[in-house]
């Protein structure tokens, strides 16, 4: 009787069913604010003046700067994908399957990076590898007595490096999860058949992981390709424009033609993202071998033997370079008066930038806006996802999969595209005018980040056997009572975790905010970005460090709340 849906919700099919009302309302919301705007965007690209015309395409894609942006986007995203996997797979294996020293610490470190705003990495590497004043460049020049800086961050290579440093955790998490799900006796069977650990890795672990590795790679490709923060800080100064930076430039032009050009480029991004989403949801997901283990054995840890210390050392150095040094650089920048001089020099240490971020009106009002819109997005997002998750897991209501599908598509759509579609449709052209308000921001955030909450609640609900609710009902509790006394109690930590998983990325969101902000609705991400680019890197760094501390605290809180199940 496991699959029996909750009886009270299912009493009579002829009478009105509240499930359909809920599904209906959510679908209407998503259709109005997500599906129609995206459709409109595509239509507008092909029918810029009301009739079919490819002239916009022709103009946009023959313009050399756009063409090069397209090329750079594809090249950097591809390179980031390969480099990301090259880092992520060995790390996932070493951390999950071997007796690497400090593997728990490394896992937490890389997973935390996932929650850090990517532009923080750009800020750090800009300081470290600036061709003339980069701290690391100067250090290496001194060490090896070079006359010229060895690295220049404002290049394709620099862009790929920074993108990889902040997007490889996406692949790391995907691959680690798949590895955890794999029955360890599959590997043991190979060992006992006479294969060495390395042979086992090559012939059993790798092939079984392949679908997940491909899925992880595609995820990195899309996120890197649709990233705005990093290319705008690292790429633009070096004349490396990507599709996202071009789209935002075009929107800033403000003219109708600019908007059309932005639309035309956005369609390209959307197309790539949708193809990737389709491939990783359908053909790949089917190939992901899920083997249910008869009993939960601890995975057998591969003994690295005499390689244990050298490999642990290499991983430490990697973590130091990719995560710790950048974080430290940003933090130390926030205390430095003159960036050209070392922090230790007399009079160069200051708290004035920290004071500034807590006192300057513009910053405080932006922080308030961000807090407000992120909380609203997280709260409304969780209300929707909780209802959806319940209907999806516990009932057989018709159409319960539609919102799930739409939420997945929304999250897979590049931020730039979502924002652009909202601008074009929600500025009064079609009844609704919420342009220049916080509402438009909240809606954009929800579309982009609701999936995080959805996944968390769905997986928590799936783990709760329906018989627990049924036991409450048989004891006399009504449907609502049993939901309140049993189900909600059990999923509460996951609901809180889901709330933060939506809240955090919204709180420091940059890309959509850049397009959707108005003078009264500037957000923290945008404020930080303008400080970084135009006013004061130190102030920006102080803000970034504050966000970083917050991310770590929230991550720690989530870890406590869910006993380690969700710390992403």
């Amino acid at each position, binding site marked *: 009787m496991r699959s029996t849906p909750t009886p009270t919700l299912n009493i009579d099919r002829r009478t009105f069913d509240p499930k359909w009302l809920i599904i209906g309302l959510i679908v209407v919301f998503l259709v109005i604010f997500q599906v129609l705007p995206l459709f409109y965007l595509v239509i507008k690209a092909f029918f810029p003046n009301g009739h079919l015309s490819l002239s916009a395409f022709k103009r946009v894609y023959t313009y050399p700067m756009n063409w090069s942006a397209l090329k750079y986007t594809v090249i950097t995203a591809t390179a980031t994908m390969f480099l990301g996997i090259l880092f992520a797979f060995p790390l996932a294996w070493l951390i999950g399957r071997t007796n690497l020293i400090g593997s728990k610490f490394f896992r937490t470190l890389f997973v935390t990076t996932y929650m850090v705003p990517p532009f923080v990495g750009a800020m750090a590497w800009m300081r470290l590898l600036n061709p003339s004043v980069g701290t690391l460049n100067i250090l290496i020049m001194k060490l090896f007595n070079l006359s010229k800086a060895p690295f220049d961050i404002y290049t394709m290579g620099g862009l790929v490096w920074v993108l990889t440093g902040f997007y490889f955790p996406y692949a790391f998490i995907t691959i680690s999860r798949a590895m955890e799900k794999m029955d360890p006796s599959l590997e*043991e069977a190979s*060992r*006992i*058949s*006479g*294969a060495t650990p390395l*042979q086992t890795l090559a012939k059993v672990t790798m092939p079984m992981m392949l679908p997940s590795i491909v899925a992880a790679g595609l995820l990195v490709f899309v996120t890197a390709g649709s990233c705005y923060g990093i290319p705008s800080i690292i790429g633009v100064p070096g004349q490396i424009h990507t599709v996202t930076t071009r789209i935002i430039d075009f929107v800033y032009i403000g003219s109708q033609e600019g908007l059309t050009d932005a639309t035309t480029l956005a369609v390209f991004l959307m197309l790539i993202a949708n193809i990737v989403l389709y491939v990783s949801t359908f053909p790949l997901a089917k190939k992901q071998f899920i083997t249910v283990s*008869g009993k939960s054995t601890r995975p057998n840890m591969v003994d690295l033997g005499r390689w244990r210390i050298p490999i642990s050392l290499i991983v430490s150095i990697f973590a130091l370079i990719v995560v710790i040094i950048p974080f430290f650089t940003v933090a130390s920048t926030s205390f430095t008066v003159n960036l050209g001089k070392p922090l230790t020099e007399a009079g160069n240490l200051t708290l004035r930038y920290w004071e500034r971020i807590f006192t300057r009106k513009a910053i405080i009002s932006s922080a308030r806006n961000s807090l407000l819109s992120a909380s609203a997005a997280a709260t409304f997002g969780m209300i929707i996802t909780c209802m959806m998750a319940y209907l999806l897991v516990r009932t057989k209501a018709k159409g319960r999969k539609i919102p799930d599908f739409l939420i997945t598509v929304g999250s897979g759509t590049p931020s730039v595209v979502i924002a652009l579609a909202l601008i074009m449709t929600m500025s009064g052209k079609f009844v609704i005018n919420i342009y220049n308000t916080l509402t438009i921001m909240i809606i954009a955030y929800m579309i982009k980040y609701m999936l995080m909450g959805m996944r968390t609640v769905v997986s928590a609900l799936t783990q709760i056997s329906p018989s627990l609710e049924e036991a409450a009902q048989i004891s006399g509790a009504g449907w609502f009572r049993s939901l309140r006394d049993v189900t909600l109690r059990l999923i509460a930590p996951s609901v809180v975790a889901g709330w933060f998983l939506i809240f955090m990325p919204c709180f420091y969101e940059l890309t959509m905010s850049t397009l959707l902000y108005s003078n009264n609705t500037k957000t923290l991400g945008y404020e930080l970005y303008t400080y970084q680019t135009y006013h004061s890197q130190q102030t920006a760094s102080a803000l970034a460090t504050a966000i970083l501390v917050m991310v770590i605290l929230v991550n720690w809180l989530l870890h406590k709340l869910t006993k380690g199940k969700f710390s992403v």
Partner: protein
Amino acid sequence: MAGIIIENVSKSFGETVVLSDFSSEFKDREFVTLLGPSGCGKTTMLRMIAGFEKPTAGIIRIGNRTVNAPDTFIPPEKRDIGMVFQSYAVWPHMTVFENVAYPLRIKRQDKQTVRQKVEQVLDTVHLSQYAQRIPSQLSGGQQQRVALARALVAEPQLLLLDEPLSNLDAKLRDSMRFEIKEIQKKLGITVVFVTHDQIEAMTMSDRVIVINRGVIQQMGTPSEIYRHPVNQFVADFVGKINFFDATIEEGLLTITGTGQQLDYHGPHTGNVVIGIRPENVRFASRQSDLRGKLASQFYLGDVNDCRIDIGGILMRVIAEPSTYAKYQEGDEVFLRVEDFSVFDDVGFDDHRRILT
């Protein structure tokens, strides 16, 4: 030669001692079963023989090779062992043929030999026609036989079986028991089998090692273990048994609280616990060892499962099916006790629960 010698092996995970001072010797071609409740350490012992866990102390020898010792560790891949896992661990990305061929390909045997040996072993486990299938197209029982074929293909001298039957349904489990036993006899290999199922242990093994809480309780042939359990745990775990408190004085054993007595001529005296297996009690037509009142009876076809009140205490008796028609609940019955065991009273409280 693939006898196994285990000398004083202990294993702890941190503070938790999983296995303490395990010593035993398995003879070549012997079918040895490690039997015990879940968490007793039997799987850990098997995994140490396989090389997936390292003992905290002690020595393990397979054949004439020391595989585990304080200064020696031979990794699993160098031990020449076949193993069947509880979850089968059949690789989903390979066909049945590739799965089974894997150990041979690792040993770099030539194509012809691989084909021939795989076909032969698939024939042994009755899977010849499934060679090109992928595992997800097979039933649980078939996957299990793929795992068995893979464990046997390289002709190991030692086969380890980790509860391989526990995920199968009852009928299939029955037939696989005999198939595994057949294959073992045919190939003449040593088998170490881990299970918590006493029927599997009884029917398949040459020797059974009963383990509880990481300590060997008893080693012996199935009939020794069943007929002469050394302690209450073994008596209780293997088969069904009634435990009663009793006292022994001058050749007479008195069951506490009932006043009923049995002849006893053994080493025990004073306060003891007596164990009577339900099937070792017969209905008698006139006054015999014990008497009581029939409290309830259940006709199961092959037996009549009764509870008899022997004076304030219930005793379970498994009687001939024909007795069901002869007696009615409430009738007075005479009972002949054909065999019983006596244990020192060590405060083992399990007999106070209702016997099932």
